[in-house]
C-alpha cells in the first residue's frame, strides 16, 4: 500500500476574521501531531519563545514538531518542494490571504502532481459575525467567494454579536448543508478542525460556558449491506450537522470492495479501498453537532439505508 496522503486544510477568511488566532493555537496545541503551517503573514505569528527550536526569516521550527513557514509566490512550486523534502509532516495547514480566493488554492490539490502526496481535507472559512455586514461593498463578493469555497464555516466573534444577528447571518449568507460552527477566541478542538482521531472510544470534546457549539462523537456499524444511493441521500440530509464522518461502507453496489467514505463539512469523498479483510461490515464514526435529537437522527437515518 502506498504512503498515506498528507491531509491539507485551508484556512480562509477576510482580513481580521481570526485566522491567525486559530493558527497560533493549533501550532502550540497539545495534539501530538506534526503540523506544517504555511502562513501569509509570517510576522503575525506569535509563538511562545520557549517553544521555538529554530527560526529564520521564512521558517520556524517548534519543539512539538510543528513547522511554520511563509507562503510564497508560486504555490505549486512551493508545495512540490515541501512534499519532496524529508521533514515529517502529519498535516499541512495553509492560511490563505484575507483577500484571496481560497477556491483557487483548493483547486491546486486536484492537480495530478499532488494526487500521490496530498489530500484536501477541508476549506475552513472564518466569518467575523460582528463585522461581516459592515465590510465595504467591494469586499462582499470576495467574502461570498470565500464562503462558496468553504466546507465548514467558523463563525467567529459571536460573543460580540447579538443572537438575532447571528441567526440572520446563518440564513442570509450560508448554504443548505453547510455546517457552521461558532468559535470564540479560536477555542475549537483540533479534532474537529483537523480530524485527529485519538485512540480510545470517546473523543474528548469540551463544552464551555460561552454559547458554543457542542460536539458529539457518534458511531454506527452494521453487517448488512446498505444502498449507496440511500447512504448519500442520508448524508446530504444531515450535512449541516455533521462536521466529520469517516468509515467503511459495505454496499450492494460494490459488495466485494470496501468503500472508504470521508466527509468533512460539505466535502465528501468515496474511495475504493480494496477487498474486505474478514467479514464485511459497515463502520462509521462521526463528529456531529448536538442539535435536538441529532444523535438519534444520525443512527436512524443510517439504519434506513440498510437493504
Amino acid at each position, binding site marked *: 500500500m502506498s504512503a498515506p496522503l498528507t491531509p491539507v486544510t485551508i484556512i480562509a477568511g477576510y482580513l481580521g476574521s481570526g485566522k491567525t488566532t486559530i493558527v497560533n493555537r493549533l501550532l502550540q496545541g497539545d495534539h501530538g501531531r506534526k503540523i506544517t503551517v504555511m502562513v501569509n503573514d509570517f510576522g503575525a505569528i506569535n509563538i511562545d519563545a520557549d517553544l521555538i527550536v529554530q527560526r529564520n*526569516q*521564512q521558517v520556524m521550527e517548534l519543539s512539538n514538531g510543528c513547522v511554520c513557514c511563509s507562503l*510564497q*509566490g*508560486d504555490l505549486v*512550486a*512551493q508545495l512540490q518542494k515541501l512534499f519532496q523534502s524529508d521533514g515529517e509532516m502529519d498535516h499541512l495547514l495553509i492560511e490563505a490571504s484575507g483577500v484571496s*480566493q481560497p*477556491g*483557487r488554492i483548493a*483547486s491546486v490539490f*486536484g*492537480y*495530478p*502532481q499532488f494526487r500521490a502526496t496530498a489530500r484536501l481535507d477541508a476549506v475552513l472559512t472564518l466569518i467575523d459575525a460582528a463585522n461581516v455586514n459592515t465590510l465595504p461593498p467591494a469586499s462582499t*463578493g470576495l467574502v*461570498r*467567494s470565500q*464562503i*462558496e*469555497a468553504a466546507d465548514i464555516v467558523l463563525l467567529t466573534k459571536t460573543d460580540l454579536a447579538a443572537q438575532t444577528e447571528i441567526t440572520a447571518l446563518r440564513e442570509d449568507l450560508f*448554504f*443548505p*448543508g*453547510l455546517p457552521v460552527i461558532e468559535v470564540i477566541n479560536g477555542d475549537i478542538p483540533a479534532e474537529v478542525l483537523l480530524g485527529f482521531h485519538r485512540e480510545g472510544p470517546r473523543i474528548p470534546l469540551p463544552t464551555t460556558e460561552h454559547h458554543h457549539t457542542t460536539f458529539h462523537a457518534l458511531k454506527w456499524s452494521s453487517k448488512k449491506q446498505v444502498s449507496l444511493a440511500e447512504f448519500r441521500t442520508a448524508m446530504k440530509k444531515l450535512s449541516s450537522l455533521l462536521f466529520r464522518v469517516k468509515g467503511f461502507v459495505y454496499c450492494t*453496489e*460494490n459488495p466485494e470492495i470496501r*468503500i472508504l467514505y470521508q466527509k468533512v463539512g460539505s466535502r*465528501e*469523498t*468515496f*474511495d*475504493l479501498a480494496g477487498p474486505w479483510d474478514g467479514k464485511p461490515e459497515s463502520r462509521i464514526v462521526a463528529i456531529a453537532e448536538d442539535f435536538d435529537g441529532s444523535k438519534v437522527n444520525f443512527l436512524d437515518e443510517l439504519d434506513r439505508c440498510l437493504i
Partner: protein
Amino acid sequence: MVNSNPYLSTNAPQPVDGADLVLLSGKIYTVDDIHPWAEAVVIRQGKFIAVGSNAEAEQHITQTTIVRDLQGAFAMPGLYDMHTHPDLALGPQYSDYLDVGLETPTAEEVKQAILNYANANPDREWIFGKHFVHYNFRKAGIEPHRKWLDSFIPDRPVAIMDRQWGSCMANSKALELAGINENTPDPNNGYIVREPLSQTPTGILVDGAYAMIAAAMPPPPQTALERAYREGARFQSSRGVVATKYVHVCENRLNALRSIDVAGDLPVRVEAAISWQDDIFPVKRRWELLAGERHFYRSNRINANAVKFHFDGTAEPRTSYFLSPWPNEASWRGSLNLTPEHIKEMVTDMDRRGIRVIAHCTGDGASDIFLDAVEDCRRRNGAGMRHQCAHSTLLHEGNLSRFAELDVIAEFSPVGWYPSDFTIGARSAYGDRLQEVFNVRGVLDEGGVTVMGTDWPVSSIDPWIGFEALVTRENPWGEMDGKLGRPITIEEAIRMLTISGAYSMGIEDSAGSITVGKTADLIVLDQNLLDIDPSGQLHKTEVRLTVIDGEVVNDPENWLENTTMACRFDTPAPDFRPVAI
C-alpha cells in the same frame, strides 16, 4: 534583365506624370541625420522624390499634382508599434459569445440567458460564454453539474465560465465533443471534477481543464477576427501608426489579415508573428506556415516572417525568470516555459529560414538566456535576422551592451513606464527593482536599438501615451506623482518610434524616415513635438493626416476630399483611447 522596380504596390495610386502630392510650408522633422528638417515633401508613386524647400518642391508640380499647404504644421515619419494584439483585445467581444450581463446572476437567470441565447442563435452549434457564480448555485441548493445544463439543453454543446475560480461548467454534449469522459486523464495544470467511484465527469472543469473545451470549439468566427484587425489597424492609423507587429497569429488570423489586405483596406504595414506555442489559442498548420506557407500572405503590407513565444511569465504570478531570487524569496527565481536548449535550437533554425524570433522575456534571466541563444546562432549562422526581445521588463546591467553586439532589438512596453496603481500595485512583486524596469536609457547608452510595443490589451493601443512616458517617466494623467526609471530625450523617443521600428522590421533602408527614395510614410500633427513641454501634453497630440506608401489613409479634416487622393475610409475611425478621467 527586366527591371522590376516599376512594379507598384497593390495599394499605391496609379502612376501619372509629375508628382502625385506635394506638401508645402510645413515644419517637417525628417529623422534623417543629413537633413533633419524640411519645408516641403514631394510624393510620386508611393515614394518621396524630393524633400527640402518649397522652391525645390514646386518644380515637381504639374496639372495633376495635388498641392496642400501645411501652414507651418509639424510633420514627421509615421509611428511604429512593434508589439500589439487587436485580435486578443477585440476578438472575444466580436465573437458574440453569451454574456449573461449580470454581476452575480442566480441559477435561474443563468438558465434564462442560456435559453435566450440558444433561441437567438439557432445556427451556432456551441453556446459558450460567461458567467455563473458558484455561490448563488450553492445558496439555491443546486449543484453546478452537467445534468443541470442537460435538463434544459441536452442536444447542443453548452459551456459557461464561472466568475471567480477559473472553472467552467459544461453539459454532456460539450463534454462528448471535447472528448472528456471517465478515461480522460487530467491535464497537468488543472483537473476534471468527477463523480465518486464511477469517475464520470460532473461537467465542472477546473483551471487548465477547460482548455479542452476551448480546443473543441470552433475558432473565433473569421468575421470577428477580421473586424478586430480592421478596427484595430484603423485606430492605429488614425493615431499616426504606419507599421505594426501583431505578435501571435495562427492560420485563421493570417487569413483575416489577408482578406483586409486584398480589399486594400489595411492602412498599416504588418509583421505578423506566428505563435510557437498553443498557450493563447491553438495554432493549426504551424509547421506548414513556418516551412513556407507564410509566403502565401506576403504583400507590400503583410509579412509573416516572425515567430513569437512566451519564454518566461509575468510579474503578478511571480513567474518572470530572474538571474537571482525574487525579492523576499529564498530561492524562487521564476519559471521558464521552454528549456534553454529548446531556445537555442529554435533561434538558430528560425534564423536560417529568415524568420525573426520575438521572445517574451520579462525577467533578466529570460533575456540572458535568449541573448545567449542569439549569440550561439550568430556563431553558427553568421549575421542574420534581427531577433526581438519582447517587453525586456528587467534587464541585467551586463546584458545592456549585448543588444548592440548581437543586433538584437530591445522592445519595451509602456504599461510600466510610469507610476500608476497598476505599476505600483500589481507589479509590486518586483520590489525595489521596480525603479530599474524598462531600462530604455541603459540599452540606448550602450548603442542598442530600442522599439516600443503598446501590447494592447495589456496597455492602451494609443501609442502617444507610451511616447509621452518615455520622455517623462511620469503618469501622463497626473494620477500619481513621481517618476519611474530614467527618461530618454524627445529626439531619442522619436527615433525609437520611427526609424528604429523600421530597423526592427528590416526595412530601415526603404522606410522609417522622410528621405528621398523611401516609401512616403508621413504624419501631420497638431503640435510641434520638439517645442512643447511633454508632461501631460505629448499624449494629447492629435494626428491631422496619415500617409502610407503615398496613400492618404487618415484625413479627419478632409484635406483631400473630392480629389483623386481622397482617403478611402469615409467613416470616422473607431476610438480605442482610454476614457479621460
